[in-house]
């Protein structure tokens, strides 16, 4: 259960991007957050994933108030979230091959022994062939890279998935494949989903509930 209560957040003092926004995500639920560009959806998604400290308001994860953000947040709270960003190119370390990219959270949390097993499970689930896994980000397409980023988000088996315009820069077939991979994961684990975007049709078909930004403020 993830609760965002009266969140106010931004990047400069006295000029918040998000003002007094509340949102609740029940276990296993999927919420689509619609809104125009620049309204603050991504900032709210970053607050929800504990990547951005809000100026006011509170975040509750399974009833426990979150007191610290980013590195300062306890590791089990941080890794409860799997985040997929809009621009795969910017969200992949350019030095790491796709295997390294997907395995990085396992290495960071001291679970390197699970790498071969998890890669073998996730690569076919997101549609990555073995020859792609050895390539570096500049050697694959945006769609292939976004598949690897989704696999990275799923590798620690998060309880909440935050997809920030995950399919915005992809063709329809890749978008459909990624959405299917997310739904397969949710069906298997019961994870909740916060999908941010401006494609009303996609979010309505994908999520149990869609909310427009204006309804939150």
């Amino acid at each position, binding site marked *: 259960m993830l609760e965002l209560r009266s969140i106010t957040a931004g990047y400069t003092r006295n000029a918040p991007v998000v003002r007094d926004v509340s949102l609740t995500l029940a276990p296993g639920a999927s919420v689509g957050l619609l809104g125009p560009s620049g309204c603050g959806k991504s900032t709210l998604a970053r607050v929800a994933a504990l990547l951005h400290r809000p100026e006011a308001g509170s975040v509750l994860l399974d009833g426990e108030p979150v007191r610290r953000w980013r590195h300062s947040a306890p590791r089990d709270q941080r890794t409860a979230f799997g985040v997929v960003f809009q621009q795969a190119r910017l969200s992949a370390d350019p030095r790491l091959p796709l295997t390294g990219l997907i395995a990085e959270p396992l290495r*960071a949390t001291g679970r390197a022994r699970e790498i071969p097993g998890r890669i073998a499970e996730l690569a076919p689930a997101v549609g990555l062939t073995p020859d792609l896994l050895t390539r570096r980000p500049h050697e694959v397409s945006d769609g292939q890279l976004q598949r690897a980023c989704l696999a990275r988000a799923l590798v620690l088996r998060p309880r909440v998935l935050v997809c920030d315009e995950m399919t915005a820069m992809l063709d329809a077939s890749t978008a459909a494949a990624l959405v299917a991979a997310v739904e397969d994961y949710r069906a298997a684990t019961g994870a909740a989903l916060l999908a941010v975007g401006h494609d009303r049709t996609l979010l309505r078909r994908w999520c149990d509930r869609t909310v427009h930004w204006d309804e939150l403020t």
Partner: protein
Amino acid sequence: MTCDAPAPAASPAESAWRSHGPGRRSTRALRVRTSAVLVAATVLAVLLVPPLVQLDQQAVDLAAKLEPPSLRHPFGTDDVGRDLLLRCVYGLRVSLLVGVAAAVTATVVGTAVGAAAGALGGWVDRALMRVVDTFSSVPHLLLGIFVVAMFRPGVWPVVISVALTHWLSTARIVRAEVLSLRSRPYIDAAVSGGASRWRVAVRHLLPAVLPQAALAAVLMVPHAMWHESALSFLGLGLPTHTASLGTLIQTARGSLLAGQWWPTLFPGLFLIVPTLAIAGLAGAWRERLHPRHRSELML
């Protein structure tokens, strides 16, 4: 049938394009090749000549003092009859050692400070950058003189002096790079994936800034060599019996006034040519690393 029509004159746009074209590229390639050959010759000379040539660079021969260049002494002799070619090679060895050691030390310190300031942010960033500003506000030769004055003359005080006054630019470059990288989504993904601050710095940030830091180090080598020579020329660097390019020029400046040009010319050339060659190679590397910078330079 022949065509006698004159070739159309190149438009200003074409001329501008040609100045970036093959001629320009071949000049650059020649510069890089020449620099590479000179740097290789310098490194081979300082590494191989002292062990292979069993001659004493300190051997005094008062009967042959201030001899002009000849077959026996290609660079002539100094005011106590020592062979200047041998002294120049030994001097270059010391100057290059000081330059490389100071550049590496300055780069390590600058990278550590810049990475800590950029990665940690907040009060750590503000405090470290004020330290950088404080060091920058003092003329660095003056600060270098202050540092060497605290120690007995020797190689390592000069290395420390040059390093302590030259880490500031590297710290600023690395901090700026880390600040720009820190806001990238792949760092957010690493944080979300459970990476500690240390892991983010070592695994994601430092490898990304290393090419910049290495370039800064190479660009610093010639500068550090000149700094060592300046300190030694002022009598504050290496002791006069240790051959460095600075001490050679310093001890020879009296003979220059008496009309003997060789004791200052050859150490001067040994300082200028290798430092220009290193700077030429570093410049070519920078052009490869920052193509946009190259195009700005060509305008």
